[in-house]
Each structure stands twice: as C-alpha cells, then as structure tokens.
C-alpha cells in the first residue's frame, strides 16, 4: 500500500512539474493543481497510513490514525482552492487584456529561438 501512495505522489509531482514548465497559462494552472494534490497527499502521508482507523473516538476502540496531518491537510485543500481561483483570475485577466496566454514575459521570452515553428 505504501508503495502505491508513494508512487502516486511521484507520478502526480512529475506530471505537475511537467505541466508547470509549459508555456501557456492553462496547463500551468492544471500543473499547480496536480502539484497541490501531491503535496496534500505528502503531508497526509507524514502521519503514516492506516486502514479502518478513522480518528473519530469510539468506545472500546484504541487504535486511531494520526489526526493532526488530517487537520492540516483539510485546511490546505480549502486554501489551495482559493489559490487556484486567484491564479485563474490573474491568468484570465492577462489573457483578456492582451489576447495572449503565454506565461513568459515579453521580448526576453525563454527559448524564443527554440520554439517550434507553426
């Protein structure tokens, strides 16, 4: 199970980084969203994994999973929504104002020479 979680985080991180390195706003936003999934799972995993031990107190039950990372991740999920929303409006505003959704800046744009021809 641990291997599955670890590999999920790895795949999500790699996908997120790859998309963040794209040149247009939309893939970058999707990339950051994937990265925040990865980070949230990472934080959650710091409490170690447990099956069928929810941190809800019951009489006669003594084994519970670690509640603290869960509380931290819960707010992180909500905040990452706020972050995504702000990034989206910034990207949208930039696109609507300039009709251009490149994320790199003006004349010094990275790899202009490298960019594939149409």
């Amino acid at each position: 199970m641990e291997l599955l979680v670890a590999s999920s985080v790895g795949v999500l991180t790699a996908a997120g980084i790859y998309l963040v390195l794209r040149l247009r706003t939309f893939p970058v936003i999707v990339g950051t969203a994937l990265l925040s999934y990865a980070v949230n799972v990472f934080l959650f995993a710091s409490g170690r994994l447990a099956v069928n031990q929810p941190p809800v107190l019951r009489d006669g039950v003594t084994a519970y999973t670690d509640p603290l990372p869960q509380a931290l991740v819960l707010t992180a999920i909500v905040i990452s929504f706020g972050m995504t929303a702000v990034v989206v409006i910034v990207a949208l505003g930039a696109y609507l104002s300039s009709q251009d959704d490149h994320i790199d800046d003006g004349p010094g744009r990275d790899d202009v020479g490298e960019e594939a021809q149409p």
Partner: protein
Amino acid sequence: MSLFLIVALPFLGALLPGLMIRAGRNACGGTTFFVTLTAFAGLMTHVPAVMAGEVLTARLDWVPALGLNANFFLDGLGLFFASLILGIGLLIIAYARFYLSREDDMGEFYTYLLLFQGAMVGIVLCDNILMLLVFWELTSLSSFLLIGYWKHLPEGRQGARMALIVTGMGGLAMIGGMLILGDIAGSYDLSVILEHRDRIQASPYYLPALLLILLGAFTKSAQFPFHFWLPHAMAAPTPVSAYLHSATMVKAGLFLMARLWPVLSGTEAWFIIVTGIGLVTMVIGAVVALFKNDLKALLAFSTVSHLGLITMLLGTGTAFGAMAAVFHILNHACFKAALFMTAGIIDHEAGTRDITRLGGLRRLMPVTFVIAALASLSMAGIPLLNGFLSKEMMLEEAAHTVLFNSALLVPVLATVGALFSAAYSFRYIAHVFFGSQQDNANGQPHDPGFGMWAPPAVLVVLVVAIGVAPFLAEPLVRTVTAAVLGDAAAMPDAHLKIWHGLTPALTMSAIAVTGGMLLLIAFAPLARAWAVAGPPAAKAIFDAIIGAIIALSRTITERLHDGAMTRYAAIFSVTVVAVAGHAWITGNAPAPAREMLPVEPLPLAGWLLLVVATLVLVWQHRNRFLALVLMGVVGLMISVGFAYLSAPDLALTQLSVEVVTVILLLLALNFLPRETPMESAGGRRLRDGIIAAAVGLGAGALVYTILLGDFAAQTISAYHLENAYKGGGGTNVVNVILVDFRGYDTFGEIIVLGIAALVIYATTEALLSGPVRARLLNRPLENVAGDAHPMMMVVVTRLMMPLVLMVGVYIFLRGHNEPGGGFIAGLVVAIAVVMQYMASGYAWASGRQRVPYHGIIGTGVLVAGLTGIGAWFFGAPFLTSAFGYFRIPPFEKFELATAMGFDLGVFLCVVGAVMLSLDSFAQMARRSGIAASEYDIDIDPSRDHALDTDKAEG
C-alpha cells in the same frame, strides 16, 4: 521632561511643518523652532542632575524576548551630544528660515530636518544597541532626503545616493558588529555591555566585532578611505551641511566610538586601527582642503580632517586623549557650523562659492567678515580662541604617542595636519575677504539680515568665550569625559588652560601656524602643481566600482531573471533535486521500520485509475477540456484514497472542493483558447520531461522512506486524541483540532480564504470596467447550447435545493462528533447554490440572492472572531472553548459547545468565499443581446401551450 518625550518630540513635531507651511513661512519656521526649543528646554531641566554625576534612565520593555527594549539613559556624554544636536539645531532652523528661497518647499525641509533630529537624539540617548541601530539607519535615510533636497540638481541626487550607499553599507556592517557585541556581553543594553570590558576583550569574536563596528563608525564619520562621500554631500542646502555634515551626523561615528570606548579601547588592534586611520584622514583631509576652490568643499575636507583628528585622539586610548577628543568635538561643532553658515551667506549674497571668483568682501560684508575670521582663526588654532585649546591638547597627546615603534611618526604627522589646517583657515580669510574685489554675479554683495547672521554670531560668541575663559567649559568637559571613561580609566588630572608653559605642543603649534602662513604665501605655484599631480578624484573611483557592481548584477539578473517563468521553475526544480539528491547520497536514510500494509484489489484499481488518468492528462494536455475532466478523475481518486486510508473528513472536503474547482475552471475555460498550441520543440519537451521525472522520483522516494520509517520524534498526536473529548467535547478529533486546538490557525485560514475571494472580486471588477468589458460583451457566440436552461435540470435543482441545504445543516451539526463540520458543510451549501446558477442562469439566481457574498464572508470572520473573544469575558485566552450537555424534554440529551459558534464562522466564510469567486467568474459570462428570461422557467409547456393557443386564436 521624560526622556521618551525628548526623543519623541522631534518625530511628533515632524508632522507639523507640512501643515504649518499653509500658514506661511514664518509660522512654519516658528513651529519647527518651538518644537526643538521644547525638547531642548526639556533636556536642560536634567542638566543639574547629570552634572552632579547622576545617570537618568527611562525603561520600557518592548520585545523582551528578542532583547529589544525601548530603554533610554542620559549621562554626561548623552547630554553633551543631545545639547549639541538640539542647540545647534535651533540655530540652524532659524538660519534656514532665511536661507531657503520662496521656491523651496520649506515644510518638506523642516519635516526632514526634524526626522533627522529625532533620529540623532535617539542615537545619543538610547540604551539598547538594537534601538540604536534603528536610529542609526534613520539618520542615514533622513540625511539622504536632506542631501537630495534640491531634487532638480543632479549633484544633489548623486551626492545623496553616494552618502546613502556608503553610510548604509557601514550601517549594515555595524548591525553585524553590534549583534556580535551583544552576544558576547549577553545583553543588548549598553549599560550592561559597558560593564563587561574584560569579557568582551577576551572573546575571540572581539576583533570581528570591533572591525564591523568601526566600519560603521568610520563610514558615518567620513574617515579615510570612506571620506569621499562627505564633500559630495555638500550639494545639500547649506543649513544641512552645517547641521549634518559638520556638527551632528558625522559626529555620530565619534559618539559611538566614545560610547563604546570603555569596552573596545585599550587593545593593540583598537590603537593601531583607530589612531592610524584618524591620523591618515587628518592629514589627507587637510591637504586636499587647502586646494579646494569651492568654499563648501574646502570646509567639507577640513571637516574630514578634524574628524580624523578626533578619531585619532579616541584611538590613543588614554584618558587625556579622550578628554581632548571631547573638548575638540565641542569646539569643532561651534566654529565649523559657524563657518558653514558664513559660507552659505557668501553664496547667498555674492552668488558664488568659488574662491577664485571671490575677494575683497571685507569692506562689503563687515559683519560676516568678523564672524568668519574669528571662526577661521579658531580653526587655525590661534590663541584666545577655543580651537587653540583643544588643538594644543591634541598636539600634547600626539607628542606622547608611539605608533609602530616610532616616537616621531605621530607628532610629525599631527604637526603636518595642523600646518595644513592653519593654511586653509588662513586661505578662507585671505582669499575671500581680502585682496581685490572680483566680479560680482549678484551686483553689490552686502551683509544679510539679522536672522541670517545671528545664528553664526551666537556660535562665534561661544568660540571666543571658551577661548578666553576655558574654565567655563571645564565642568562640562570633565563630566562628559567621566562618562566616556566609565570605569575603564581614571579621570586625568588636567585642566583647560591657555598657558601650559613652554611645552613641546606649543612648539609644534608655532611651527604649524608659521608654516601655514608660508604655505599660503606660496599658494599659487603649489596649486598649479597640485592640479597637475594631485590624486584622482574619489568620485571617479566610486562611480567605477558602482558601475562594475551594477553591470555584474545586471548580467546575473538577466541570465536568471529574464521574465521567463518557465525558466525560474526549471532552475528551481533542478536546484531542489540537486540539493535533495546531495542530502540523499551523503546522508543515511533510516532503514524500513514498519511493515508494509497489504495491497487489496480495490485500492489497486483506484491507483491504476489515478496513474493512468494522470499520464493521459499529461499526454493529452493540449486538449484543455479533456485535461479538466481527467483532473477531476484524479481528484476523485484522491478523495477515495483518503476515505480508504481512514480520513473521512479529508475525503468529503476533497470531493466537494473538486466539484467547485472544476466548475471554476470550466467557467474560465469559457474565455480561454480551447487548445494549447504546440510550441516547445522536442528537445525542450524531453528536457522538461527529464526534470519532471527527476522531481517525481525524488518525491516518491521521499514519501516511501517516510512511510516506512518511524517518527523521528514523539508526535503530539497522542495528546490530541486523548484530550479531544475531555477538553474539546468532541469525538471527531480532526474537527476538534480545527476549531479548538488549532483554532487560531483556522481563524487565519478563513481570513486568507476571504481575502482570496475579495481579490478575485476586485480583479473582476477592475477588468470589467476597462476595455476588456467591451471585448467580452461583443465576442462571437460559439458552441451555444440550444437549450441554455433545460427544464429537467431546472426542476430537479430547485427541488433538490432544500434537501441539499438540510444535508449541509446536518453535516455542520454533526461535525464535532462525526466526519463533517464547517468547511465541508460550507462547500456543500455552496455547491447547492452554484447548481441554481448553472441550471437557471446567472440573472435568475443572482436576482434571488439578496445577501451580498462579501457580507457573508465578513459575518463569518466576525462570528468566528467574536466567539473567540467571548472567552475573554470568562478570563480565558482568545478562542478558549467551553461545552456542556443539555436536555430539553422531548429531545435526547445533546451537547452545545462554543466551538460550534466558531465553526459557524468557518461555514459562513467558506460559503461566502466560494460563492464570491464563482460569482465573479460568472459575471464575465454575461454578454450583450441576451436578456434574462422574464419567467421563472425558460421552458414551460403550459405557458407555451397557452401562447400557442393565443396565437391560434389571434
């Protein structure tokens, strides 16, 4: 008067000139004068006590944990400097009133001047070296403003920048030195530091601390090789030069050396550095001063030279040297400020400060001549004037100082310095006031009004008074010297006298004065030789260095920071991987300590779905809509994973956040291109792929190691599990942590969320009020659904609304004990409302939404905050929760907790924030030409049937 008030008065007073200038220039100057006068009078009330040897203190603990306290103390040294700052400040304020022309903004000038004054008084009175550093930097900043006061002059701007760079750099070094010093002494309070001479001088960090502190002091006091900024600061208005650059600010470095004299002086390093630098500065300054043709430049270099003289005296480390230094600080402040003011008068009246264009002013400006001549002669060291007394003491001290095993080095150089000093003092008189009258740019120069010559006259009266009757100054000098010496040395048994007998000092003095006169006679050929063979201008060197630094940083910046965000991201990723890889290879990861959980088929299927969805997403990311759908799949799998791994709260949250995120991105996608064009070449994609794979591999390996390793330290989770019910009254530990244990964090988080929503709202409003609005309204319609508001969906969402709201309430109420709570309930309710928007259209839904979302966010934060504040009324800290169990007969026993009020705030804030964000996006979707339906439902068979019948009948 309280010491706090004395320090605060100039700062408070700085608010007034800008206001009073509306009432006229006299009112403005008068107010400023009065502010300083009040502070000065307040200071004077302490004179008897301080002269009697008392040390007054005022303490206020500010940030005791950092050792940062607003403590002030007033001893002889502080009193002496504060009197100079405020006393000469008074004269300068009066002088500036008449000096500034009508075009100058007087309010601005006096504001800066008072800011500077407050900072200086702060330096000399404060007891805490951290506070001292703050005031120190404030003087650098305010002097920057004052030097650059004439913003239209390029020299002013350049001079201001140079002064800021040099003194600011020194200030940074000093911060380091002071922190080391405080660390050695174990306290940042000066009064404590001064008691630890032995410990400080024995510390291995003594030398670094000394060097850093001296760097600060030397840059501020214009010591070689940092002296060059001072002449360039002369581009400032003359009152500034007279005040900052002769009497006060440049003395701050001397003050600091005097203040720390008991703990820093007396070592070999101190002696060689301070005496050596002081001596070099004194000679270089004096020589350069003689050949300057600009009156203020001459005075500036002479100031450099005299500052070097005082530095040298402090460096010798003897009690007599300290006494001479104190006395010369007083004397120099008097005659030099007066000289600067006369230079300003000459500039003002004759229209030039160029000595070669001046001459014969003796007859035209007799009053100015008398003042300038007396002050100059004092500077030259002529008997019966105060400069003679302290220069005599300096030469006496020099005669006994042995540097580098040479008994001659110091006395000879000191005499050379004094000789050039006499020469330029004589030149100031001879070439400006005597000789033939030169061309006069301003017609016939004449003496200025009383207001302008009175301030320097006051100072010259002091010059003569002290010179004739030195015993008048003796009590003050002795008190101040005692304060400088502290416990480190005994008070010297010397007295201020005009006649000491035929001492070596008198001989040296005679040589200096005679030599000075000879130099002046031979001035013309010497000046020609100097013009040919003189040293290069320091400004050129400085500009070259700064230019090189700028070029270097520009090269680095343009390479790394060229506006390409992808490049930063790539560099960042590679760096992180490199650092982490280094740690991984050199460190030793703990061996697995836990059993791996068995893999069941269902989780395996979920994992497979997640990985496949992610890979397809990357592969097909150019199709943006598909990417969004796949992102939803990934999010869904993650929430299922949370549910499986014992995190029901996270699963619920992730699920509902996923829904709103996808809706939000769909709204945005409405305006963005549907496809991402292929731009990167294959090589670049490969490069990115390798970087991404490396980061992913690292992250995966890290998680794997963590998951199989044991906790490095005892976790605090057991505490939370144990106390959730006993202390927080809830069985859902995650929720109790959120609303109780870590309530403060949550409080901050909902505020952040609210701010994010407001940012989105504000950005949308800004966008929609600009040219974007027209473009949006007129964009071509494409892919419009035939049926914008399908009847089935409208009916179902409206029927569902009360049900979903009830689910929301249920999730909210049970949150404390079962999975749920404010966050999740808020998201669920928000989704219910969003469904109405989607089904029935923006116009219909927002027409029925009567409470603005900003208000809901605000109410949420308010409710949460008030719940927290409620605890204060029971004497408990912010956000302490309480709970109890109640029974109202028909119901079962139930629990009420104050945490519920807090959770209500969270709930409201989440609803408001999510809705405000989505609502803002939806606002953009409105377009022209489509009116909102006037009916509740677009399609209504009965209505449409009736219309059809109407038509048929009509």
